[in-house]
């Protein structure tokens, strides 16, 4: 088969950090080529290089054997590279037809010959089996149909290579079938497709070849016929297991929180929970492993009282939770390190000091006369103590937290959430974006809390982190629990398969 695109020794560096290093990739005409890798493996960066959003630091891209420079998305379109983003780029208030011709560079003059254009588009749609209604507005059509519009838009601009970024993420099963048919049809007609997905089942079904990325580098490229899910999962996770620094607890204390068949928007695969049963005991760390967007955020928000489940029961220290409010859970001494520290954890325009005492200004320690007079000196002294204890590096405790580094912001949250000796700590991606030192600090702090009898629910997309600190590992996929594994000598292969939904 002819080669359409080849990347040779392509690297993309941000500062000292290589997001992609020495990538060699070849895409043939008429193939579905899957890129497989964990979050942060470098897939998105590589695709952004390909569509001209980033310039590679080193390396060359060849199209049909010719070296090319792709310095803008418009240039990528001219070269026949089209991308369907995970979040669609459609103008919702406009019709399907208007979206397809929007920004098309062939439009010359002031007037558009609508009928001729429509005929052209319909012919194209028919050829590839893309069923769309041109005169409906985007808001009126289903998600699957919006995706077909995106594909049609790319084809109308002359795409020979289509990049589909997690195209099945938002689709129902039937819609996925339809998408696969379209993909087959496209490749039969000689178009090439780069398919990005985390779902092993789909990858195995649709791919011709599979390239595995890990930590910004290509691990290998395999023919679909010569591999299986087990091998792919191993390659994707792909490491010799480094022994954990921490001792693992095997028999936890009494349950702190217990979920029984909890549902939340259970038909939503990526933002719901479906019959989740889970227990976190005193003095153990339960790690939730799984690819981002399989219901982890919703789980975190249910066990901190932000969301109310649609069905099922939640027991807090043995008694049933009647009302779900963050305040109620805080009173039950549940602490929360939320997934987005700037949006959910900190008041960025307030000082380090204010953020440290954020939850406790009503307490007699920090205010007298039932909250009617703040004890500013007590607050200051306490904040200074916490600054030292948690090693928060700031110019002063009056510095606004939005000006701190990510690691120090996280330490402010830790100081607030852990100081009251919580019974349950819910930590969501607690080390995302932190350097090694800060990560280690966060892990040590969680282990310390565990050893003091706190139950910890750790949710993380970083598999290393889960393996490092979890006493038990629970795998989530599409809102369901796929399995529970011991954190001591964890069965990596089984876990990685469970993460991919098998």
């Amino acid at each position, binding site marked *: 088969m002819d080669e359409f695109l080849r990347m040779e020794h392509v690297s993309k560096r941000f500062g000292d950090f290589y997001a992609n290093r020495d990538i060699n990739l070849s895409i043939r005409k008429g193939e579905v080529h899957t890129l497989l890798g964990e979050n942060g493996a470098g897939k998105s960066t590589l695709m952004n290089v390909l569509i001209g959003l980033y310039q590679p630091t080193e390396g060359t891209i060849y199209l049909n054997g010719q070296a090319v420079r792709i310095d803008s998305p418009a240039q990528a379109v001219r070269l026949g590279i089209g991308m369907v983003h995970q979040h669609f780029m459609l103008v919702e208030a406009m019709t399907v037809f208007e979206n397809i011709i929007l920004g098309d560079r062939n439009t010359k003059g002031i007037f558009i010959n609508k009928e001729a254009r429509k005929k052209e588009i319909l012919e194209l749609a028919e050829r590839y089996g893309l069923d769309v209604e041109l005169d409906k507005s985007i808001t009126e059509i289903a998600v699957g149909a919006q995706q077909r519009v995106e594909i049609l838009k790319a084809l109308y601009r002359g795409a020979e290579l289509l990049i589909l970024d997690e195209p099945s993420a938002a689709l129902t099963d039937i819609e996925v079938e339809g998408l696969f048919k379209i993909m087959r049809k496209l490749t039969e007609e000689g178009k090439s497709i780069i398919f990005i997905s985390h779902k092993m089942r789909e990858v195995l079904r649709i791919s011709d070849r599979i390239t595995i990325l890990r930590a910004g580098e290509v691990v290998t490229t395999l023919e679909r016929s010569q591999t299986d899910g087990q091998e792919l999962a191993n390659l994707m996770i792909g490491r010799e297991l480094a022994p954990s620094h921490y001792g693992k607890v095997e028999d936890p204390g009494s349950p702190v929180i217990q979920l029984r068949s909890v549902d939340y928007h259970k038909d939503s695969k990526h933002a719901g929970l479906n019959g989740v049963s889970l227990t976190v005991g005193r003095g153990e760390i339960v790690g939730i492993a799984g690819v981002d967007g399989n219901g982890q955020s919703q789980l975190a928000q249910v066990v*901190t009282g*932000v969301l109310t489940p649609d069905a099922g029961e939640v027991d807090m220290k043995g008694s049933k939770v009647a009302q779900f*409010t*963050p*305040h109620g*859970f*805080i009173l039950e001494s549940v602490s*929360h390190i*939320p997934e987005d520290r700037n*949006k*959910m*954890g*900190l*008041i*960025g*325009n*307030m000082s380090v000091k*204010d953020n440290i005492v*954020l*939850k406790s*200004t*009503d307490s007699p320690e*920090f*205010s007298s006369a039932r*909250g*009617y*007079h*703040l004890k*500013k000196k007590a607050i200051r002294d306490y904040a200074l103590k916490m600054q030292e204890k948690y090693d928060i590096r700031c*110019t*002063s405790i*009056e*510095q*606004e937290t939005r*000006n701190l580094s990510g690691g120090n912001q996280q330490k402010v949250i830790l100081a607030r959430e852990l100081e009251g000796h919580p019974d349950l700590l819910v930590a969501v991606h607690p080390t995302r974006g932190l350097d090694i030192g800060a990560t280690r600090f966060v892990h040590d702090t969680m282990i310390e809390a565990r050893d003091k009898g706190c139950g910890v629910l750790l949710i993380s997309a970083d598999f290393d982190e889960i393996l490092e600190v979890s006493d038990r590992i629970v795998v989530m996929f599409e809102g369901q629990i796929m399995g529970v594994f011991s954190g001591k000598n964890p069965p990596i292969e089984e876990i990685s398969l469970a993460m991919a939904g098998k």
Partner: protein
Amino acid sequence: MKNNSKLANFLVPVISILLAFVIGCVIMAVLGANPFVALQSLWIGAFGSLRNVGTTLARSTPLIFTSLCACFAYRCGVFNLGGEGQFLMGSIVCCYIATKSGIEGLPAILLCLLGGTAAGGAWALVAGLLKVYRNQNEMIITIMLNYVATLLMGVVYTNWLRDGSVPQTASVPDADKLSRLFGLRITSAFVIAIAVGLLIYYFLFYTSKGFQLRAVGLNMTAAEFNGFAVKRYILLSFIVSGAIAGLGGSAELLGTQFRLINGFGAGYGFDGVAMALIGQLHPLATILVAIFFAALRVGSTTMQAATGVPTSVSDIIQALVIVFTVAGLAMVKLPQFKAFLGRMADKTQKEAV
């Protein structure tokens, strides 16, 4: 960094005011007047004698109320643009109590102020309920409610409470009028306004609830995650800010205007919004800004009489202060400007060494 941004918060309004005056002077010169003489007469008109000071402070009183109204709401992240409507509703209810209740003297005054406060709060609550429970945009709702209040006041002074042939209500009884201070135009309403300002300052910065309210205003999501009753704070901020405006409306009626008439309270709501912003949402700074604007307005009449420079030049200066401050505050938030400040700081440090 912290000190720099604090300094900028102080310097921006000051520099804006200076710039606005410079441009005002150019306009005066073009009009053929001597700017220095004109500015001098502006100053004399506003602060030249005890009597003029009294007039300026009296003029600032309703502005203080409406700017505190905006200030309080914004601190909780609520964009209440309905200060004017709440001000008017307060004055309407106050007018009814003063002219129809039959009580007089101090009990009547207290009842009037209380009724006006409650009316302002209730009027703002309408918008608050629509925002919290129906997710409506509070800016649009409050602006619309301003029109409703203005038209309602029209009905009141042309029909329901009309007194005689002129479309206006009867004057409030002398016994219900707020007492003047030291025989000047300034009344006890000014004292009430300052007291309200101090109270708000204390609440926002010295109480636990005020602290939480500010947290809600700065980041609602984080406030919710940290267990604050966000909806309750939003409703509270609507009610309190409306109540402040309503109190202002009643105080203006009992202290200065004495009757409802076409144009009563017009423009005070939006003036308050601008002043709260220039005052950086700090209640005490907001009061100073309100007095400054009142001084420009009072002094401009003297300026016109003495030098022939029309009062509209003073309006231009006021408008420019607003424009420059808003632009300036946006500018100091730009990353380029922060980088520039950083370079300057490095340089001065090196020179100091």
